[in-house]
């Protein structure tokens, strides 16, 4: 879809016995849009009669409403709303949520300046009961691996109506996870664009998943099926399980047979390693042989990793720092399985320090390279569950990294350079990530493969690279990997100053 002129939006909202005040705020936020070429379609899914009266009283010239006499469920109502839409793009808006006043204008600008864009999403925050906004979720750009395991996109979503209809619209049987199911099917067809700005306020309420996951347990059962069917459609051989948190899914991939060379850069120095490299080799062999992929692991220890790589004969090469120790015996299988996808260039695991805190959960290159969530508890779910799901990253540490044999030489260069100047290793690793991704391939980080990395080298300050990181967010403070928002963007402030200049606390 290439909007040759101003795009027309159909905002779709379905309701069932909503809080009238919340619905009123929702409708008002659409009516106040600075972009005026839209229709707001509200489908009442068999609510009590007073809701119909309230909707009638909210009417404005661009609002079109419809009422189901009998309840058809979330999906049935969404299907009705979609069938009523006449705009080129549909905008999904929950009945108790609120659009930022310039949301549609911002999306229209994006669509006009990005011809061919069919799906776009924005950042969102939460709307508290006291009507103040809090906890902004600044999202990564399109991250298909993460989307499989978590609907990180949620709101705001704008999609071309043609695209939505061509993938079958909202599907029955996926109530509660119908949006995730739709996004997965759309993602199989087109990449998504991301507007790095909060355009949507998601209301925190007692019945909302955002505050009470147990209220919508059924949604996650449907979500499991949506993810499993998506995996089948895109050729991922895997079983799908519930993740460690509601709304997260664990995809256990079955690998094709693969051989692996493990290259350990061995300096011969006394390292602080709990298990010897020999034991590591035994674990590596047994974990590959004991898994679903009958493979073979060859261990190569050398001070000169570049030379060691010349002898590599396997499909996959895993580089491991001599000061590392594999924790989970499934780690190799998990990493090999992710490399089944030809679009994946390399995979890095969760690296923990000896005290159980995160040493690196991937690298961000926002501003300058930094280890993601370094120092956080190893069992913390992370902001936005970033420590629970496999996801795209700009780079991973070469302390432990798996790649294909074709890329081994490039990675070996980085491993050698990092070893030569440890304080610059983070820069080298970031540059390697950029090189591997330059052809359009992706780097993945997985929490389901875990290693200790006995390294406490401080990062040398002053290396300001100003790299953009599509998998972080420019609204976050550069040079940190902890999702700290830039000043003024963290949501509710401790107080606000009212019109009379009086300081008031929320």
């Amino acid at each position, binding site marked *: 879809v290439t909007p040759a002129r101003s795009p027309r939006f159909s905002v779709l909202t379905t309701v069932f016995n909503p809080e009238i005040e919340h619905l*009123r*705020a929702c409708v*008002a*936020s659409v009516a*106040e849009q600075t972009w005026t070429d839209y229709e707001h379609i509200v489908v009442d899914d068999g609510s009590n009669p007073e809701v119909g009266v309230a909707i009638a009283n909210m009417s404005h010239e661009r609002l079109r409403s419809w009422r189901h006499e009998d309840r058809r469920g979330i999906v049935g109502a969404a299907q009705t709303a979609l069938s009523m839409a006449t705009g080129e793009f549909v905008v999904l808006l929950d009945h108790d949520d*609120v659009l930022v006043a310039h949301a549609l204008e911002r999306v229209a600008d994006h669509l006009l300046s990005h011809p061919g864009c069919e799906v776009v999403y924005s950042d969102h925050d939460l*709307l508290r009961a006291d*009507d*103040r*906004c809090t906890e902004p979720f600044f999202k990564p750009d399109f991250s298909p691996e993460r989307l499989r395991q978590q609907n990180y996109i949620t709101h705001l979503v704008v999609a071309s109506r043609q695209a939505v209809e061509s993938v079958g619209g909202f599907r029955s049987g996926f109530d509660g996870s119908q949006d995730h199911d739709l996004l997965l099917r759309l993602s199989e067809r087109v990449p998504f664009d991301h507007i790095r700005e909060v355009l949507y*306020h998601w209301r925190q309420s007692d019945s909302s998943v955002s505050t009470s996951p147990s209220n919508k347990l059924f949604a996650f059962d449907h979500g499991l099926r949506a993810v499993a069917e998506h995996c089948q459609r895109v050729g991922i051989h895997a079983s799908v399980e519930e993740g460690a948190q509601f709304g997260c899914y664990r995809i256990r991939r079955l690998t094709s047979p693969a051989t692996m060379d493990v290259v350990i850069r061995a300096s011969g120095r006394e390292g602080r390693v709990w298990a010897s490299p020999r034991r590591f080799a035994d674990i590596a062999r047994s974990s590959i042989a004991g898994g679903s992929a009958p493979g073979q692991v060859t261990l190569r220890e050398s001070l000169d990793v570049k030379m060691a790589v010349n002898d590599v004969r396997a499909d996959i090469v895993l580089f491991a720092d001599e000061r590392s120790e594999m924790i989970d015996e499934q780690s190799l299988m998990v990493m090999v399985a992710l490399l089944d996808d030809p679009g994946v260039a390399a995979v890095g695991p969760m690296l923990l*320090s*000896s*005290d*159980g*805190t995160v040493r690196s959960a991937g690298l961000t290159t926002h501003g300058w390279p930094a280890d993601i969530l370094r*120092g*956080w*508890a*190893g069992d*913390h779910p992370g902001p936005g569950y970033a420590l629970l799901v496999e996801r795209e990253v700009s780079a991973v540490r070469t302390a432990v990294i798996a790649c294909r044999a074709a890329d081994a030489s490039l990675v070996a260069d980085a491993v050698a350079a990092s070893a030569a100047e440890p304080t610059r290793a983070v820069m080298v690793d970031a540059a390697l990530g950029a090189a591997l991704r330059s052809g359009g391939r992706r780097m993945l980080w997985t929490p389901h493969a875990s290693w200790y990395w006995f390294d406490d080298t401080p990062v040398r300050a002053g290396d300001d690279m100003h790299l953009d990181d599509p998998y972080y967010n420019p609204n976050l403070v550069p040079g940190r990997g*902890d999702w*700290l*928002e*830039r*000043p*003024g963007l*963290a*949501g*509710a*402030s*401790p*107080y*606000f*100053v009212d019109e009379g200049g009086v300081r008031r606390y929320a």
Partner: protein
Amino acid sequence: VPVDDVEHLRVQMAELQAELDIARGAVKRAERDAGAARAELVEVKVQLARARQEHEAAIAGRRRGRRKTS
């Protein structure tokens, strides 16, 4: 005990090894406890940085109008 009593030395060795394992386990547990405390500190520091930033932003009047009144 004769120094060439191999069996006795083996037993002694096993006992010492067990003691060493226990000591190593204790070190790991202590390190874990320290790690948990460090992690909490790191998280609190982020929260503190967030609160400070927002406080300063509010004072400077740089905050966008983010209080919904509708």
